[in-house]
């Protein structure tokens, strides 16, 4: 189990950096990118993944007052096979971590992860043996939302940031997962990649 998680961290923790669109790009794919990204970012189906109190705010984000239907995101899917976005809302216990990773693996690509709240992002108040100190140890996170819980507008702000990120992603980049080795390994540091995330 530990080895597997570590491999995943090595392969995934480097979320693609946001390339500068104005710096040019592939001539053939640029226009196509724009159309595909326009479609992708305006029809994100989130996965119902409420784990704790943050989920209450996620629900109210989907309700009438804040209404993420305005961004085409109101269809919360119960099945990972139909979802594009995993909003990890709440604390992830060590027992939940393999489940979370499996559900992430079941989602079809392209997929994004928003880590909502202090607990999901870095452990929050639960700096103890039972809670994963940051969900980015198991899945690559695209946007972090601080707060306990983040208010619905803060979550919508994060989703708009995610839309901006999708806007700058390229078709090719999602197919080639980056294989940048973790800096800790490069420097010959013996601490496993998992530990280096745990603090902070």
């Amino acid at each position, binding site marked *: 189990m530990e080895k597997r998680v570590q491999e995943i961290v090595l392969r995934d923790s480097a979320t693609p950096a946001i390339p500068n669109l104005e710096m040019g790009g592939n001539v053939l794919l640029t226009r196509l990118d724009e159309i595909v990204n326009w479609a992708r970012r305006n029809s994100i189906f989130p996965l119902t993944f409420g784990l704790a109190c943050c989920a209450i705010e996620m629900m109210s984000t989907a309700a009438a007052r804040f209404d993420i239907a305005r961004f085409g995101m109101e269809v919360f899917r119960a099945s990972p096979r139909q979802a594009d976005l995993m909003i990890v809302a709440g604390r992830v216990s060590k027992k939940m971590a393999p489940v979370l990773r499996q559900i992430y693996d079941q989602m079809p690509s392209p997929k994004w992860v928003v880590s909502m709240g202090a607990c999901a992002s870095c452990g929050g108040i639960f700096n103890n043996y039972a809670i994963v100190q940051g969900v980015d140890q198991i899945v690559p996170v695209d946007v972090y939302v*601080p707060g306990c819980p983040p208010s619905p*507008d*803060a979550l919508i702000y994060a989703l708009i940031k995610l839309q901006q990120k999708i806007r700058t992603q390229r078709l090719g980049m999602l197919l080639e997962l980056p294989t940048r080795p973790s800096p800790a390994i490069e420097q010959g540091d013996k601490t496993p990649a998992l530990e280096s995330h745990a603090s902070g």
Partner: protein
Amino acid sequence: MNILRDVLKPIGKGLRITLRHFLEPKDTVFYPEERKEQFPRTRWRHVLLRYENGLERCIGCSLCAGACPVRCIYVEAAENTDTERYSPGERYAKRYEINLLRCIYCGYCQDACPTGAIVLREDYELADYTRDAFIATKEMLLEPLPVRDEVAEVAR
């Protein structure tokens, strides 16, 4: 069975409620364009305050760091000298860092601070792409220096 009384009338009754709610004023906050009203005691991103004369209120006492339930504040104090004076007291915070990601915005630091230096304001748009981006240093937290009256007049 009476079709009119048992079927159409209840349906009409239900649809009337739907229609009434449809015509009511809407509650939706169109967030990026308009913001919902924030309550006066909303607690979001921290600000380190200054006195009117520009000196920092923070005296580097670390009481906020002690009160913080998640230990996300780091304070490193240094002595004020007569040539380099940052705060009216003996010491000032040389380094003052808050991990905004781990912070739970409880406001305990605000309650603990003896000089009222750290306050939580209503800036909630904090989401970002990397975890490193959430370490707020003293420079990011301090409110800008007040502009002196005569300077402000020249600028005007």
